[in-house]
């Protein structure tokens, strides 16, 4: 079964991982801008990072027949630095017309602070002004419930937001329902210890259905498996879910959501996969 990984940080992965993804029938990835492991000291570092996401990674992925898309922003962790964030936001729009940019992301909250909320709101303004899709990062562990609710507050308080153009990611048992009920798309991240295991993601798919639901590996420099979406497919098959049900989550839904961006070109798919 061909699939799309809608959230993976290939910058942190080796070329061998592109090969592994291709061998596992991954046909497209989308890579949100994120925290590289240390706080950057100047806005020029972000400029180079955005070039990397829009120039180098698409070329590297293409060698393995994988489409590469990206999302741009200042991540929630570095958003604590207001002045740096505003410097980056001042030049970010010049990257939005690069061929592989789907929107603004992954924006959100980290420790649920005032500065993070301010920078989130400023990203939201940018997305609205430039008619961009939005990819949301929800916080980790103990901060997730509070932060997700705060993010939903900020989105739902804005009548200009078209909820079908927003993907709320890293959802788990305690945050999936409010995001879906509010009309947003939802992503579940498959991690070995934090976030969702493939089994729990399959449980949530069974409980909430396939509408507006995706799964991703969020593969990065931490403990993560870049081919984790395959683990989800395997788990769903073990539970005897139909191929069309599984495909809806791992391929059709990402295509439907991403197709709202003019940058996205859906892989030409047949019953068996892309031609």
């Amino acid at each position, binding site marked *: 079964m061909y699939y799309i990984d809608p959230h993976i940080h290939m910058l942190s992965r080796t070329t061998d991982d592109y090969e592994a993804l291709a061998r596992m029938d991954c046909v497209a990835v989308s890579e949100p801008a994120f925290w590289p492991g240390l706080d950057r000291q100047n806005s020029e570092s972000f400029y180079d990072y955005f070039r990397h996401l829009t120039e180098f990674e698409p070329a590297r992925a293409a060698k393995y027949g994988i489409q590469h898309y990206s999302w741009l922003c200042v991540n929630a962790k570095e958003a604590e630095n207001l002045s740096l964030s505003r410097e980056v936001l001042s030049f970010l729009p010049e990257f939005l017309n690069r061929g592989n940019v789907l929107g603004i992301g992954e924006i959100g909250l980290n420790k*649920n602070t005032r500065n993070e909320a301010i920078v989130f709101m400023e990203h939201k303004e940018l997305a609205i002004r430039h008619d961009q899709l939005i990819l949301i990062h929800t916080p980790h562990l103990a901060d997730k419930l*509070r932060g997700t609710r705060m993010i939903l507050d900020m989105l739902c*308080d804005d009548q*200009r937001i078209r909820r079908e153009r927003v993907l709320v990611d890293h959802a788990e*048992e305690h945050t999936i329902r409010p995001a879906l009920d509010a009309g947003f798309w939802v992503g579940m991240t498959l991690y070995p210890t934090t976030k969702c295991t493939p089994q729990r993601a399959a449980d949530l798919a069974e409980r*909430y*259905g396939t509408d507006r639901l995706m799964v991703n590996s969020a593969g990065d420099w931490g403990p993560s498996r870049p081919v984790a979406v395959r683990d989800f497919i395997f788990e769903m098959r073990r539970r005897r879910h139909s191929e069309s*049900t599984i495909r809806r989550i791992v391929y059709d839904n990402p295509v439907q959501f991403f197709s709202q961006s003019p940058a996205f070109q859906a892989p030409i798919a047949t019953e068996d996969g892309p031609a």
Partner: protein
Amino acid sequence: MPALTGPLTAEEVLDREFLEIRAKILEVAAALDRLDRASGSVAADERRRQIDAAIAILHTSDPDRSERVQRQFSLPYLEHWREQFQIDTRRERQA
């Protein structure tokens, strides 16, 4: 949001999961034993209390046990966070 019908029967799920559930319970039991054997005490540590509270949730027959365990390990939502941060999040629809 129509739920999916789970194709597996309860007996099939138990057949498949029994050894995994057993192994996971053993891991938790062994970790608690390890804590007890170690020098010092974490009896006053909030995380230790959270673990006990989460284990208590497993004893219930509530269908939302996993969600309740998640909430046990979560900071609560603060309804008045906007006022606390002095941020106005309301934006009107564009004309």
